[in-house]
Structures are given as C-alpha cells and as structure tokens.
C-alpha cells in the first residue's frame, strides 16, 4: 500500500497554486515537504487528505488511510486531555489511548482541561491524536509549531516508531526533524500564471 500522487494540480480560492506534482510514499518511509510560505504546502496536504478536490491528477492509496493534522488541533477546551483523546479514538474505532499519552509525555496532564494547557502542550495532544487513529498515513502540516526541543524529539521518536510499524508520513515543515527521510521541494511545481485564470468555482461560491 503506497501513497502515490500523480501529476496533481491544486487550487486555493480558485487560483491554481501547484501543477504537475508527482511523488510516492512507500510503507515505512516518510517524505518531508519543503517550500516557502505560500508555496501551496497546506493546500496540497488538504487535497491529499480529501478535504478539497484536486484540479487534475490522481491520488492513489489515500482512501480511509489518512490521519490529518492541520494548523488547528481540534481540541475542546472544556474537555480533559484524556476525554479529548478518547473521543478521537472512538471516532476512529480504537480504544487504547495509553501509548499515545506515554509517547507524548501527557500522562501527568491527562486530567487537566485542554483549555488550561500551554500552546506546546496542546500541540503535543493534537499530535498524540494521530496515534489513536490507527491510520497508516500521517499527513502533517507544520507539526512542530510551538513545540520545544524536547517535544520535537518526542515527535520525531513517535514518527520513527510509526514508520518502523510500516506506517507512512508526509510532513510539511521548515525545521530539521532529524528523521531519516527524503525531502521533496514543491517550489518548481508552482502553477504558471497563464493557468491562473480559468478553473474556478468562484461564481458559484
């Protein structure tokens, strides 16, 4: 089961941002997406996660296999850390949240309300959510924002463990995670200006 993206074109707000993107992520490997701000990393990841349709091209191996983590963590401030994780585990048909709590060092915090956590702690909880989904492909959009050095190491260890178990990861990031992974720069795939006129459902929106 390989995540394969072929000749993909994506648009944001009706404007094509990327064109001709082709890559593959095999089981047990990770791919780091690089590119300057506004290059289209988030749009590409949302497209692969199925949140928006591509303009053209194919995405194979993404049905019901993706655990997506975007800029927002999807946490409820009035639920405890444990309750937040249990909810997502149940939605994905899982039950065991203990490994996720341990991997991100959240056990001492498990009875705190998520609203009282610091930004970095919230981020750790948001990333711990990936482990309770039981999905093989992690699609992560800047996962290390507001994490300290120790937490980045926890995250890298969690990704390494996930890959060792045959999982895959597609990570957009600007920092060096210390992972043994290929890097994929999306800058050369920027859509040309001539293509930026048609292809819009703006009139409908």
């Amino acid at each position, binding site marked *: 089961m390989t995540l394969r993206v072929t000749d993909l074109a994506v648009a944001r707000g009706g404007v094509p941002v990327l064109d001709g993107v082709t890559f593959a992520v095999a089981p047990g490997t990770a791919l780091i997406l690089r590119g300057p701000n506004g290059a289209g990393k988030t749009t590409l990841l*949302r497209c692969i*996660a*199925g*949140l*928006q*349709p591509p303009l053209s091209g194919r995405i194979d191996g993404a049905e*019901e296999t*993706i*655990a*997506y983590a*975007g*800029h*927002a*963590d*999807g*946490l*409820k*401030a*009035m*639920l405890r850390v444990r*309750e937040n994780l*249990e*909810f*997502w585990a*149940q*939605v*994905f*048909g899982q039950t065991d949240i203990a490994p996720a709590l341990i991997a991100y060092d959240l056990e001492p915090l498990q009875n705190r309300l998520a609203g009282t956590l610091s930004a970095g702690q919230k981020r750790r909880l948001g990333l711990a*959510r990936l482990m309770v989904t039981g999905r093989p492909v992690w699609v992560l959009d800047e996962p290390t924002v507001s994490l300290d050095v120790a937490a980045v190491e926890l995250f890298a260890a969690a990704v390494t463990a996930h890959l060792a178990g045959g999982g895959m990861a597609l990570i957009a990031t600007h920092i060096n995670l210390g992972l043994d992974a290929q890097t994929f720069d999306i800058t050369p795939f920027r859509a040309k200006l001539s293509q930026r006129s048609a292809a819009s459902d703006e009139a409908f*929106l």
Partner: protein
Amino acid sequence: MIALLRRDLMLAFRAGGGFGLGLAFFLIVTVLVPFSVGPQSDLLATIAPGVLWLGALLACLLSLDRLLALDFEDGTLDLLATAPLPLEAALSVKALSHWLTTGLPLVLAAPLLGVMLNLAPSGYLWLVASLGLGTPALSVIGAFGAALTVGIKRGGLLMSLLVLPLYVPTLIFGAETARRGAMGLDATTPLILLAGITFGTIALMPFASAAVLRMTLR
C-alpha cells in the same frame, strides 16, 4: 456516532456550553408577552399557541450558530471530515444533540408557559405533540443553515435570513395544530402534515448539509 453525541452533550452541559441558552430565551419571551399585551385573558388565550410556537422557533434559531461554528474554529470539522464517520452521519448527530439540548427542553417547558399565557385546557396535549414533532425539523434545517454559513465570520445574520424562510412550513403547521387543539377542533390533519415535514427533513436534509459543508470546508 455515539462518541460524537456524548461529546457534544458533555460540552453543552459544561461551563460555557450554551445549554439553557434557548430555554432561557424562550422563558423570557413568553413571560414578557403578557406584560406587553396586557392582562386580558381572552386575548392571551387566543394568541398563546402562536406565541409559544414563535418563541420556540426563535429560541432554536438563537443557538444555531454554535452548532458548527465552534467546531470549525478549532479544526474539529476538518478532522471529522477525514474520519471514517460519514459527514452525513456526523451532521445528523450534531442536529440530534442540538435538539436534545435546545428543542427537548422547550417541549418540556411549554406546558408550564402555557399556563402563564392562559392556554385553553384542551390545547396542552396538542401543543406538546406539535412542538415535540416539529422542533426536530427546526434542528435539522438549522444544521443545514449552519453548514452553509460556517466559514463566514459573523454569519449569524446571514444564517437567520437563510433559515427563517425554511422554517415557515413548520411554523404554520405547528402553530395551526396547537391553535386548533386549543379551540377544541380536530387537529390531526396539520399534525400529520407537520410530522411529514419533520420526517422528510430528517431523511433528506443531512445529505444537503453534508454536501454544502464539504464545499465550505475547502
């Protein structure tokens, strides 16, 4: 699905969850009506079914923009859309939890407020039946309105404008059932039509809501 329902109910009952918002609004509106109309019990009895139905409808409308907006802001909707649960089911559950925290308390409080509005004794059963059958439609239609406006900052007014016309059939048949019941007439025909609207919207609206939400989430 049950996990989502339990989470939504838990959130509604915790501090700041908004449980009781609609109920409090409903109480205030119906308590204020006798003050504004005056102490003429005949007049109050005549308008009671309509006032109770209108109050219930506005109370539902008031709490609608919390239905999806909070989940949109913290990213939960994006994550739910990628979860194994179909978006149609997720929205049905959201509408159900909205009804349980808003519609159901209104149904239960309505007879009490009927006393305050001097509702005729024969009308209570019909009032409760019509509200019980009609308010689920308000929640389901409301979920559609919330899905339409979820990405828009301060979309509350727009949502009200979009949703209120869709509420009209429910209001007409609901208030007609309660009015006929209070006057001692046979109210089964409007009640059956009301039930038809409710079951129709429950069956069809989640698909429209999910289609619209997929578009607004892009």
